[in-house]
């Protein structure tokens, strides 16, 4: 008999059931439990801790966008931070005159347009050569911002405090308010992409990654599909940028430069390329690692292990960052998502294994 809580066998009787995201009630329930947990979590956390959660979620959105272009469509993108920046600067320019629930989607659209334009070379060039085109976009973006007086030449542009349904967001509730906004957007956009994956759009992305020629023979235009991949990834990046702008209350060029792009790539790799879950695990892991390294450095300092003139924290953070990436590339190239997959498969029919 069918057990709705555990997958004890294949009891699917229609194709509709077979395309469902959740195989069992347990799977669906555990996801909703996670969302519920995330909803109440801020009540038990202090302000700085909520800020860390905010950061992880915003980064996750940017990394999800990177995963769409790089993980699913196989187009290496070394300029994701610039796409995030396009969204952020769009939001910064529009924020004085428009409410945030308009500037955030417009920021996303601006990211999508930028993605579509950067994607145009993919009509002709492939692989590493295309990656250089995205790098070029990163450089052009930095140069353009650095020379635009309207963007304060990369200096801080303050974001106004927002008001929502007569509720003024001030110093005390800023991180809490944005936590819920970001969470909502992340859940919606993650679900949207999960849905796209089971339609022709998602399959087309993977098709151009695995085999260009065959994708062409399937009746799709491979070049346009790649442009679509860039635009979709750019949309997610743009939304993330607009949210990040509001969250950090100012837009500064340092947040959208090349090292940040590399950081996003590292998060995507550590999380697992081509995985939605990985897009969350990667940023969470690296952000928390970074913070713990700071604590560890302070602790070492308190033990009297520091040398005069050497700041352990500033040395250890990039060191561990690099070490973690190398270790992942060697020992788990499929990233944290693979561990997640193993755990999930173990619990799929646990405790009724046979």
């Amino acid at each position, binding site marked *: 008999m069918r057990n709705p809580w555990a997958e004890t066998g294949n009891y699917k009787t229609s194709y*509709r059931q077979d395309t469902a995201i959740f195989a069992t009630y347990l799977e669906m329930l555990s996801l909703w439990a996670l969302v519920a947990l995330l909803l109440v979590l801020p009540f038990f956390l202090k302000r700085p801790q909520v800020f860390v959660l905010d950061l992880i979620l915003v980064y996750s959105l940017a990394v999800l966008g990177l995963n769409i272009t790089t993980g699913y469509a196989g187009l290496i993108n070394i300029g994701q931070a610039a796409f995030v920046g396009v969204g952020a600067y769009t939001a910064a320019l529009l924020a004085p005159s428009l409410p945030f629930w308009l500037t955030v989607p417009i920021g996303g659209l601006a990211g999508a347009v930028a993605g579509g334009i950067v994607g145009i070379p993919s009509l002709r060039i492939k692989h590493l050569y295309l990656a250089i085109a995205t790098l070029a976009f990163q450089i052009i973006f930095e140069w353009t911002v650095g020379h635009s007086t309207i963007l304060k030449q990369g200096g801080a542009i303050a974001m106004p405090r927002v008001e929502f349904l007569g509720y003024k967001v001030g110093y005390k509730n800023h991180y809490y308010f944005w936590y819920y906004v970001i969470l909502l957007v992340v859940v919606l956009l993650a679900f949207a992409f999960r*849905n796209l994956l089971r339609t022709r759009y998602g399959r*087309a992305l993977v098709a151009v990654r695995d085999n260009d*020629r065959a994708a062409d*023979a*399937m*009746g799709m*235009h491979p070049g346009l599909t790649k442009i679509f991949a860039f635009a979709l990834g750019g949309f997610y990046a743009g939304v993330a940028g607009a949210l990040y702008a509001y969250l950090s209350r100012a837009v500064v060029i340092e947040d959208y430069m090349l090292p940040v792009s590399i950081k996003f790539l590292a998060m995507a790799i550590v999380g697992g390329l081509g995985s939605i879950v990985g897009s969350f695990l990667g940023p969470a892991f690296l952000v928390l690692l970074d913070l713990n390294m700071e604590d560890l450095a302070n602790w070492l300092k308190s033990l009297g292990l520091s040398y005069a003139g050497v700041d352990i924290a500033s040395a250890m953070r990039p060191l561990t960052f690099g070490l973690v990436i190398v270790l992942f590339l060697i020992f788990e190239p499929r990233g944290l998502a693979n561990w997640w997959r193993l755990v999930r498969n173990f619990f799929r029919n646990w405790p009724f294994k046979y």
Partner: protein
Amino acid sequence: MAQLSVENVTLVFGGLAALSAVSLEVEKGELVSIIGPNGAGKTSLLNCISGFYHPTRGRIRFEDHDLTRASPHTATRYGIARAFQNIELFSGLSVLENLLLARYTHLNYGLLPAALYYGRAQNAEIEARRQVEEVIDFMELEPYRKELVGNLPYGVRKRVEVARALALGPKLLLLDEPMAGMTLEEKEDMVRFILDIRAERGTTIVLIEHDLGVVMDISDRVYVLDFGEVIAEGPPEEVAQDPRVLEAYVGGAA
């Protein structure tokens, strides 16, 4: 008028003519084979028809469409499907997803319904699944439905390749050595599939094959290519007697 007509097609790479003034006509519902020694230009000809190469001179016509300058996706939209010689599947996807990709042009819901997976998008996906399942049933791929293509053995991947071409719902099926490197049993299965495709779906088939026994058995007509030229054409039994064909295959008369 023939369904597919290739008129005086010449294909030049640098100074080398891969095809010179090749003409070929295929009637609707026919099974036509192209044979010839290695490097004769068989695959180049197929590449021209399916849009991967564009002929230097000459014209290619399919039904009312001019294919001379068409790209592969345009050729596919006109109803031409192709199974590749060196398996060109999407190795990171399951058999099912590979075949669903072949329904790409038949699915035309927008991005928003897809993101919500609601209404039209869901119904269209389920209809596509139903059609793909028919092909899976037809090609006897049931046990491999959810397996990643990259993990499947060679013979099965060859079959998936043909199944995917079939899932496009083509009017003309181009098969490039679908039996190469297969065991006798697998070959017999493939021949059965090809004959069934023609009998049940009335699909026109152009087949490239090295196994002359198979070719002579199942083809309506045979074209023989050598050094980019058609050296013989006609029913299998006539072609088999042609002195030029014998020369190309077994060398000059001693």
